[in-house]
């Protein structure tokens, strides 16, 4: 079965999110007074053909470890949906 796996990547706590800060300043300058903070991350989708949703998750985790995520600065979470 084909699964769509959504991978959400963000910078770890304590790593300077300079893009988030720039967007934050722009929004604040536009008058969004309720704004307290912005973080910018990445959203990647992969489609995998596996026997189960659990296997799809494991495949995606391997892709994160191999390439998609730099564990020195980033962290990620995964959502799996059957197509």
């Amino acid at each position, binding site marked *: 079965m084909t699964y769509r796996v959504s991978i959400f990547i963000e910078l770890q706590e*304590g790593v*300077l999110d300079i*893009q988030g800060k*720039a967007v934050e300043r722009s929004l604040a300058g536009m008058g969004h007074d309720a704004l307290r903070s912005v973080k910018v991350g990445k959203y990647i989708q992969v489609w995998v053909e596996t026997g189960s949703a659990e296997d799809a998750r494991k495949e995606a985790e391997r892709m994160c470890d191999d390439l*998609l995520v*730099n564990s020195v*600065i980033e962290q990620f979470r995964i959502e799996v949906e059957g197509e």
Partner: protein
Amino acid sequence: MNTAVIVFPGSNCDQDVMHAVAGSLGTKVRAVWHKETTLPEDTDFVILPGGFSFGDYLRCGAMAARSPIMKAVAEHGRRGGLLLGICNGFQILTESRLLPGALLPNRTLNFVCRPCFLRVESVSTPFTSLFSKGQVVQFPIAHGDGLYTLPEEELKALEDRGGVVFRYSDSDGLTGDNANPNGSANNIAGIVNERGNILGLMPHPERASEALTGGEDGRVFWQSILESFTKGGR
């Protein structure tokens, strides 16, 4: 000393660095395409050049670090062979975990392209042996992602073992925040691994290797490498 310059799709300093090494040292320099799986057998020195490998997509250097040739490059480094990463090459070395830390977008989010003063922090590396400690040199920088970062404890460990080789400074060698072009931790511009044979730096010594292009401090850098190699037979 035979030099191999690895060329990735999007490398754009490969010709410059080949010209600088050949011009400064008169030694043999070859280009090696990233899809190769082995280095030429007599390779002594490997350079990962600057550029925008794989369009800087995903993260700078991330995909180049997984190119077929990188297994042989890592093996060369593990055996103690001389390995240098300049700019995008430095990013590839951190992405390969051959050097600690990571390079993030500059704190100003600007691409910074200008001459830069650097203070030489260590002369006990094969890359800097002909400089004097504390000497100020000028190499240009040209990068959008040069903010060097690593977790606090690892930063301390790196500093304690003398792993910082170049620091951004002013012309007097002062390393204040105003001399920091990208927000790097402790003004770090270049670091070396524990064994001392793998160096990564953001500035471009190959662009400071002849008077025509604005300076010759880079020649001393190349000459250090050749002399260390000749003496040590690395």
